[in-house]
């Protein structure tokens, strides 16, 4: 990439302006997150004060783990998001490969379907899916939510996987064919191992999407121990009571794993996404 770009050197005034703007923007970006972190370390009864932490305490965290259903919610979320990710990526990978490599009748409509379903508002599917899950007895069950989340994950994973397969040279497939592998063999033995970073990123994205989903989770899961994190967090801050201490501690525990993964994956996330979107 372009490392040395010589431009007219900045005047000191422009330099100050640049740094001032970026400092202000960074503070706005970081402050809410930092504030929640600080709040989570204050005693619950002081949560809403504007003092900085005077007597740091982990009491909010112990309350959360011992006296609330936080662990249930956390495990529900891990289960739902994890299974969704594995199933979604698994089903979508072959499709991504097929639309990347072959020209076949029905390909164009399929690509369009994948693209259009990505802009489906949940509003159109939520009622039929709710009724369907009700009839199958899957409301309040992780399985129901997993099936529902596949509607979000599959089109999106297939689209992103296509973008990644497009970046793997076709010569590799050809050499596989020359060696006598059929298309499935080529895909399984040669291309899939090369696409591991792509699989990881797609999987991460599917995981985060399911981890942060609110609408289906709010509608389908009721009862304190069946909730996922998105629903559980809502119970701390209702219209009438607000347990801001517990809320802030829960926020920190939910955000940390996501943030750690994110730091590793963020470069590839944008690349994969915009590649998938622009190469249609």
């Amino acid at each position, binding site marked *: 990439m*372009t490392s040395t*770009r010589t431009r007219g050197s900045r005047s000191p005034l422009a330099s100050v302006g640049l*740094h001032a*703007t*970026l400092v202000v*923007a*960074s503070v706005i970006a970081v402050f*809410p*997150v930092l504030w*929640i972190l600080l709040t989570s370390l204050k005693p619950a009864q002081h949560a*809403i004060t*504007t003092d900085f932490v005077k007597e740091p305490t982990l009491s909010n965290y112990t309350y959360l783990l011992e006296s609330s259903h936080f662990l249930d919610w956390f495990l529900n979320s891990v289960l739902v998001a994890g299974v969704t990710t594995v199933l979604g990526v698994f*089903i*979508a990978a*072959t*499709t991504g490969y097929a639309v990347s490599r072959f020209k*076949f*009748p*029905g*390909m*164009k409509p*399929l690509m369009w379907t994948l693209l259009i379903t990505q*802009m*489906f*508002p*949940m*509003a*159109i599917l*939520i009622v*039929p899916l709710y009724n*369907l899950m009700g009839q199958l007895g899957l409301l309040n069950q992780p399985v129901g939510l997993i099936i529902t989340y*596949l509607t979000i994950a*599959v*089109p999106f994973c297939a689209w992103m996987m296509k973008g*990644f397969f*497009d*970046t793997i040279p076709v010569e590799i497939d050809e050499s596989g064919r020359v060696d006598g592998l059929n*298309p499935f063999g080529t895909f399984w033995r040669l291309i899939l191992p*090369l696409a591991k*970073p792509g699989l990881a990123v797609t999987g991460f994205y599917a995981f985060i999407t399911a981890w942060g989903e*609110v609408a289906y989770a*709010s*509608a389908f899961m009721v009862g304190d121990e069946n909730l996922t994190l*998105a629903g559980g967090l809502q119970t701390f801050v209702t219209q009438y009571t607000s347990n801001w201490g517990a809320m*802030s501690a829960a926020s920190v525990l*939910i*955000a940390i794993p*996501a943030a750690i993964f*994110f*730091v590793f994956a*963020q470069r*590839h996330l*944008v*690349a*994969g996404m*915009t*590649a998938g*979107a*622009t*190469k249609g």
Partner: protein
Amino acid sequence: MAADTSQSVVKAADDGVGNDSAVRGRSRWTDSGNTGNTRNTRNAGGLRRALATHWYAWAMVAPVVLVLGVIIGWPLVRGVYLSLTDANERNVARDIGARHIDATYEFIGLDNYTAVLGDPVFLQRLVWTVVWTVACVSITFVLGLTLANMLNRQFRGRAAYRMALILPWAVPGFVSVFAWRFLFNRDNGILNKVLDGGGIAAVPWLDDPTWAKFSVIAVNVWLGIPFMMVALLGGLQSIPGELYEAAEMDGASAWQRFRHITMPGLRTVSMTVILLSTIWTFNMFPVIFLLTRGGPGDSTEILVTQAFREAFITSPRDFAVSATWGVLILLLLMIFALVYRRSLRKQGEVW
């Protein structure tokens, strides 16, 4: 090995963001156009031959086609059907204890549509949804572009700023929204405490219709900037530096360089992120639902939260009307996508 491939993925993807994707897109289109033609010319016996040549591909896409058909296609058809009935909580099939009650709702044609479209509420929601989408996307784009341009320069501390600015993206959306609710708290939130310190009266961030609208937009912009900024930064980095050098030699001002090199260079990536974020914002459920619940009153309710409210919050739950709102939202989005694509085509951009 893994590192190598990931590198190449990024590089190729970065290229894709830049100029070559338009070319790629075009060649793909003509390719598939050709297959369409050859398919038409060999009708007789073509099916068996097609099966022989394409069964690999078809077998590979079969799982997704199946899954999409069952869990998206069927509910979609069912949703459209429900919107033509009077289904609600009281007349759908349900089990009360061991007793099973069959559905008793009836087909009522387009009555739901005339009712929803005839209700001034629809126009209100639509206008606010459009205002919300346009405001969010344009503000996010302008701020994202500004920050991306700043970060694209050489200066000390660049990596640290970049890290700080993408932080909101690393936090799950619903967590951030709750954090903001905490900051916006009327009596004890830090924002009002700070204003109070400056001698300014407390602002009813979430309790006054106008301020609530301002607040939801502000939060959504805050959430959206990192993606916008990083995507545009990728686009900026794919513009060759020589172009800027040449322009500078010719005496082009900073504004001229931005206008004639940066903006055209960013075209493809801007088109994509604007389309994506428009669709996302139009359907942005969590920000509004978690921050204001559509309130105060119904002043921040957008189309999507309205559809959710009909089916899951009002009593009795009205499934048919909710489905009607859903179908209308989908139609609006599809019209938008078609118009958008057509306008790109007119400008010679095949997407």
